[in-house]
């Protein structure tokens, strides 16, 4: 209770300090909260950017496609590498080493290859989401007790039954965690791609507002984009809870 009050008080104090400092310094650059509120209202009423719904929808679609591809490829690669010990031991560390490269180095190549449209953002979101999912599946497969699999097989369980009854429950925690991280990273990949250069989508609107020094609109657009980020994470955490309940 006390903690919640203090948390809110801190937020209020920060907003107040921002407001005061922003007004005293340069309201155009510092964008105090009082400048954001009307901008956000205009934005949501589609006065400042009538293209908002279409752009928002495009960004959400890019995230959806990127994530779907990342899940499909990540599960496929992860299980393929996890089931095959030799390949897993050889390629697992190589994938982990690629994970040590700041992913944004791939973006210029993707932009060159896929152009400024949605494809390059989808490719980047896919790339970011793919690695954690693959690595989580790999780690998850290793967590499965091989004796349980052996016993189940010995009692006549088929491959499908073994997969759903033995393997999936014991690797579920890791797998779901990886899927959640993958979603967060796919979202970040799409957003980063859009801001580094896009013709449409939330990133293009943000760059437009920033380029014209419409700073109030810029902050409002950022808040709307953050809503997508937070929304996707809330959705993921609900699904995660569901999956955990199923496994128990």
């Amino acid at each position, binding site marked *: 209770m006390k903690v919640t009050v203090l948390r809110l008080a801190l937020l209020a104090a920060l907003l107040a300090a921002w407001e005061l400092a922003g007004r005293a310094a340069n309201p155009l650059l510092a964008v105090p909260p009082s400048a954001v509120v009307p901008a956000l209202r205009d934005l949501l009423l589609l006065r400042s950017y009538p293209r908002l719904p279409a752009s928002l929808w495009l960004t959400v679609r890019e995230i959806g496609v990127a994530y779907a591809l990342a899940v499909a490829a990540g599960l496929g690669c992860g299980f393929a590498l996890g089931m095959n010990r030799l390949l897993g031991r050889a*390629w697992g560390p*190589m994938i982990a080493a690629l994970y040590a490269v700041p992913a944004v180095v791939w973006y210029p190549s993707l932009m060159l290859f896929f152009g400024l449209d949605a494809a390059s953002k989808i490719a980047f979101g896919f790339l970011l989401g793919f690695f954690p999912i693959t690595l989580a599946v790999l780690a998850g497969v290793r967590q499965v007790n091989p004796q349980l699999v052996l016993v189940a097989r010995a009692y006549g369980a088929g491959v499908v039954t073994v997969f759903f009854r033995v393997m999936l429950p014991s690797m579920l925690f890791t797998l779901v965690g990886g899927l959640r991280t993958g979603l967060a990273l796919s979202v970040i990949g799409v957003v980063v791609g859009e801001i580094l250069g896009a013709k449409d989508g939330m990133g293009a609107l943000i760059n437009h507002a920033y380029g014209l020094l419409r700073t109030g609109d810029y902050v409002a657009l950022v808040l709307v984009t953050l809503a997508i980020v937070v929304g996707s994470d809330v959705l993921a955490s609900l699904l995660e809870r569901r999956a955990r309940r199923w496994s128990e």
Partner: protein
Amino acid sequence: MVPATIIRLLQLATVLAGLAAWELAARSAWVDPLFIPAPSAVARALAAISGPALAGLADTLAKTAAAYVLSVVLGVSAGVAVGSVRLLRDVLSPYVIALYGMPKILVLPWIVLLLGYGTAPAVFYGTLHGLFPILVLVTGAVRDVDRTLVTVARSLGATPWQLYWKVLLPAIVPSVLAGMRLGIVFCLLGVLVVEMFAGVRGMGYVMGSLANGFQAPELFAATALVSATSIAIVLGLDQLNERLSRWRG
């Protein structure tokens, strides 16, 4: 168990087979060399751009080093403070988690507006990226320090200074090192993003302009250079980490 040599050979074979297939695909024009140049063309391009690319890389690494030092110093000290004061931890942790998870690129235009082009926004943004993983790891490590150790040290009359220096710090070293390993990649990422978004120098800027100029072989060469550097830095830190842990026993 397959011996490690076989694994190494298999890894080498994978890389060579990949390069050979790529070379073949580019030579026989299955892929457009305008977009996907052959490895041999990339190697030639690497020689051609090595001058400006190395200068750009040096610039990027200098900014990354500055951001990294700031991230480690701020991250560890804030982590120790937040981790050891219960109230601070309870109040701040949701904010820290939220800031850690949020796509920081959304505030990048604002940072560039406030700090201008050049070194300052890159160092600031790199720090913003590197700080949070270190902060989160160190906070957790301080929180999980064995209470018994602290109680024993206190009852034996340790001063607060001794408590931090002799009990807390040795206990959190593994987490600090883990944070430092994560942090370096994040710092480099942040610096590269700023250079791509609003750079006037540095590797991110070089890569961005190569992409805009459709110079695919040069771009691939630059990408390979940055990737190899990053992997080398992380492997170096791993090595250091291993030495340290052997030394600690």
